[in-house]
């Protein structure tokens, strides 16, 4: 396997604050690679440096063999990017937006029309191609941005939370196409996402990033193995009380409480589950519903990025995500 992206101690500081802290990693040609991390982890900052929009404080990276600091023009020619924030000209039609892009990236004039038709079909916007983009919904704008990122057949495609704001059908559609595209065009795709089951299903490798550092990097299956064991999910009318008691008396594994559910991660549910039930009965709490599952990406995410495992998802964090979505929908 040939590497197409290599970063060497890539670091970015904003004043005293370190947003990306000495990240070194290698991404191979043809890979679909996901960056997973909580808000503010440094994902966008990391991508911005690779796209030559932000200058690294120290360290460097090679993309398609070109140095991001010294050969930025060649790097830019090799990549396509879908930004996290909106970046279309809403005073233009979507066809005009695509034409501008094609011209900025020197797509041969003879191929332009055909390619524009292709990508518009892909994202299901053919019928609206000549409408001004201020008449589009947020999701439609997002789809056009994705189409635009693919227009010049980049070697490496960066997608910063590409499917946020899309309905499930469009999301599936986009992913199908991207998977095919990779096979056909030998394209490498790096994306950030909050949809963990998607990262799980579609990506070859996942890097979990927290506070500017990579805390885990491997294939989805290995990551899940490392979290290990089973997850017991319990529902009860006194979930909150039971969860506090379990933590207080340190009955079994890691306990978290969220959305009226208790999640307990244990080594082996077969042995530890009866003990938990007994404890609950003794405490006078009835258990309504139980599921035992193998850990999914969501659990892996929480495992590596910390505190949430014990306290559940904090309202603050949920609030922030909702805020970001609103901002994006603008």
């Amino acid at each position, binding site marked *: 396997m040939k590497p197409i992206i290599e970063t060497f101690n890539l670091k970015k500081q904003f004043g005293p604050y370190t947003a990306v802290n000495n990240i070194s990693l290698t991404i191979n040609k043809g890979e679909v690679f996901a960056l997973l991390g909580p808000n503010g982890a440094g994902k966008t900052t990391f991508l911005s440096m690779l796209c030559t929009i932000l200058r690294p404080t120290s360290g460097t990276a090679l993309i398609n063999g070109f140095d991001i600091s010294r050969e930025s*023009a060649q790097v830019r020619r090799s990549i396509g990017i879908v930004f996290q*924030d909106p970046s279309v*000209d*809403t005073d*233009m039609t979507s066809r005009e937006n695509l*034409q501008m*892009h094609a*011209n*900025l990236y020197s797509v041969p004039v003879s191929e332009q029309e055909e390619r524009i038709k292709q990508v518009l079909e892909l994202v299901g916007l053919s019928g609206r191609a000549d409408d001004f983009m201020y008449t589009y919904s947020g999701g439609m704008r997002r789809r056009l941005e994705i189409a*635009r990122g693919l227009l010049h057949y980049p070697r490496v495609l960066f997608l910063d939370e590409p499917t946020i704001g899309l309905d499930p059908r469009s999301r599936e559609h986009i992913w199908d196409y991207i998977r095919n595209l990779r096979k056909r065009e030998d394209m490498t795709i790096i994306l950030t996402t909050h949809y963990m089951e998607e990262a799980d299903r579609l990506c070859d490798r996942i890097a979990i990033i927290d506070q500017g550092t990579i805390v885990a990097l491997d294939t989805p299956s290995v990551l899940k193995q490392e979290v290990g064991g089973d997850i017991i999910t319990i529902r009860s009318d006194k979930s909150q009380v039971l969860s506090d008691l379990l933590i207080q008396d340190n009955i079994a594994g890691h306990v978290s409480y969220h959305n009226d559910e208790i999640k307990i991660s244990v080594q082996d549910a077969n042995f530890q589950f009866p003990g938990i039930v007994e404890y609950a009965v003794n405490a006078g709490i009835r258990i309504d519903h139980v599921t035992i599952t193998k850990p999914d990406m969501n659990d892996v995410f929480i495992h590596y990025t910390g505190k949430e495992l014990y306290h559940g998802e904090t309202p603050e964090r949920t609030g922030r995500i909702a805020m970001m979505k609103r901002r994006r929908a603008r």
Partner: protein
Amino acid sequence: MSEIRGIYTLWLREVKKFLREKPRLINAICQPLLWLFIFGTGMRFSSGMPGINYQEFIFPGLIVQAMLFTAMFMGVSVIWDREFGFLKEILVSPISRTSVFLGKMLGTSTDVMIQGIIIFPFAYLIGIPVHIFMVLEALPLMILITIGLVCIGLTFASLMKSFEGFGLIQTFINLPMFFLSGALFPLANVPTWLQWASYVNPLTYGVDALRTVMMGDTWVQLFPMSLDIMVLLCFDIIMFVIGKTAFCRVE
């Protein structure tokens, strides 16, 4: 070659956007009419300028004024591009920063020239005989005026973080440059300090040159034409360098 295509693309975008904005075009046509017919008529009949028709006198000044305001307004559209994210799409493309600046500059300059040219036909309304040679002489002068002004607009847009600062440009660039250009009153009889303040304003030379071309013998030149052109050229070059430097620093 790809750079030229990039420049062309950005140029086309500016011009399309300018021509599509109907309210702006209406404004572009109506505002000079107000100046010419209300302000112009009022001044003509209240302050005498012997031997000179006041409307004919301010006509070249109004062209310059319209170009000045358009240049500033369109120049700072870079701020909108940044606000709405489209600037990122341009800056991450393989086109060099210099070309992006050139595209933006040429596009905005074209808008400004269109704005200036729109005003020409009004000359008939106030009885100035416009003939083709006069227009052909005026156009190159207008281009010289335009480039420097557009670069000022782009410089501010590159330095300003938000659109809030636009009011400052209005107060500290647009109006002083307009009032001190001799567009509205002759600089021959004003106090020395005002005269000197006007002489450091490049627009004074632009207005002077345009009057020389459009008013013929009725206008007593402030400076020889060659000096006017020299000053405008220097103005363009200096502002171009400053604008390009400022723009290339935008993150």
